[in-house]
């Protein structure tokens, strides 16, 4: 039985190798593009999934979103310019796909007004900064992050979790770098205020 299994495996590997060589498009180094895409895309799976789950707030929607993103990215890999930022490119695809989904349409990022968004957030209260940092636990922060409007949530995630540069964020979101800076600042203040409110509510 075990012998049969290994023969099957070997055959499978052979078939995969053959399939990979088939598309017939080769980069200068002679590496099939298919292979290149996998090497670039696969390491991003965990991060992309995390981001997708934060956007959709649902496991199966997040899985669909990541899957669709990879499918679109593979299809459009020809259009991706080698040497430019692959990560920003894929995140952009994921985000655009999300925005055309039903959940994403409700988030309505296009009409988002940074300044008006401040209004819906609670005003700054008394908890001093030092106490805030000390008392905010992970769960509290996660709840606050989930409550942030999508445009604020995504910019905080891209900056602090993905550690993208402002330039990368700008490419991903399709907004100028200056807008990234101001939106990120507002989003961070909003996050702190939400945490503050939760701490005071709990006290």
């Amino acid at each position, binding site marked *: 039985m075990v012998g049969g299994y290994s023969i099957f495996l070997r055959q499978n590997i052979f078939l995969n190798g053959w399939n*990979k060589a088939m598309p017939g498009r080769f980069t200068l180094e002679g590496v099939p593009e298919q292979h290149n895409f996998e090497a670039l895309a696969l390491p991003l*799976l965990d991060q992309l999934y995390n981001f997708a789950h934060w956007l959709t707030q649902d496991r199966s929607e997040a899985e669909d979103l990541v899957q669709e993103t990879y499918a679109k990215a593979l299809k459009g890999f020809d259009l991706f310019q080698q040497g430019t930022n692959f990560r920003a490119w894929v995140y952009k695809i994921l985000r655009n796909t999300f925005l055309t989904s039903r959940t994403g349409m409700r988030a309505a990022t296009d009409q988002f007004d940074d300044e008006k968004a401040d209004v819906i957030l609670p005003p700054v209260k008394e908890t001093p900064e030092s106490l805030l940092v000390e008392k905010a636990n992970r769960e509290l922060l996660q709840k606050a992050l989930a409550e942030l409007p999508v445009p604020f949530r995504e910019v905080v995630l891209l900056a602090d979790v993905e550690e993208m540069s402002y330039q990368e964020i700008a490419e991903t979101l399709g907004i100028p770098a200056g807008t990234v800076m101001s939106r990120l600042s507002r989003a961070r203040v909003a996050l702190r205020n939400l945490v503050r409110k939760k701490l005071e509510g709990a006290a």
Partner: protein
Amino acid sequence: MNCDQARAELEFYLDGELASDRTRELEGHVRACPECAGEVLRSVQWKRQVKAAGAMYSPSAEFRERMTRRLQKAPKKAWRWNWALAGACALVLAVFGFSMVRRSQERLVAEHTLSEVADLHVATLASASPVDVVSTDRHTVKPWFQGRIPFTFNLPELAGSEFSLVGGRMAYLRQAPGAELIFQIRKHQISVFIFQEHALDDGLGSLNGPSHQLTFNMNTWTQNGLRYVVVGDASGSDIASLSQLLKAAS
């Protein structure tokens, strides 16, 4: 620079987006001002907390496997379901159950070995003398290992990449001697461990690809009988591109 200016630019400083002359001024001010130093500390802690809270979700094993398979395969021709194939499937399923049990044991051992490697990396970071051979030149680092370990390896050309070589040291895993190379990218330290696969006594099984241990991103593979493990607090894509460079060199 005064306190107000420092506070206003702190956010950009911590994001690594402040111009170098402003960075120098800000660091100068913070060294002299305990209040602002406290603020920097709190902000760093806060940023860390947000990062930890934000890395909340990870894909299920089933989904990860599905996506990996999909990415590894070129667009496929539709299967022609015939009886021979159905028979083969039944055979595979029968063996699959058996191999699952073995696979999960192998996985446990591999996970354990990986966390040992992560510990080695932490030990290096905490060490007073993290490297035994300090050199950014691969032509100095590689010969240093000659006679110290029972194998040789190739180091990648780093010119044109963001990585730099810091140095190397000896490492031991499961009593097997190996090489630890320390690289740097944007202040993140990355260790690359190289051992002889057979000397590890199946400690990592057939493990291949990226993973996490503690808060580190890792990647591992075998090549020409050598087992490579890359570990560091840099992003998954940085770890992946260093892995690519190493793979291309050997």
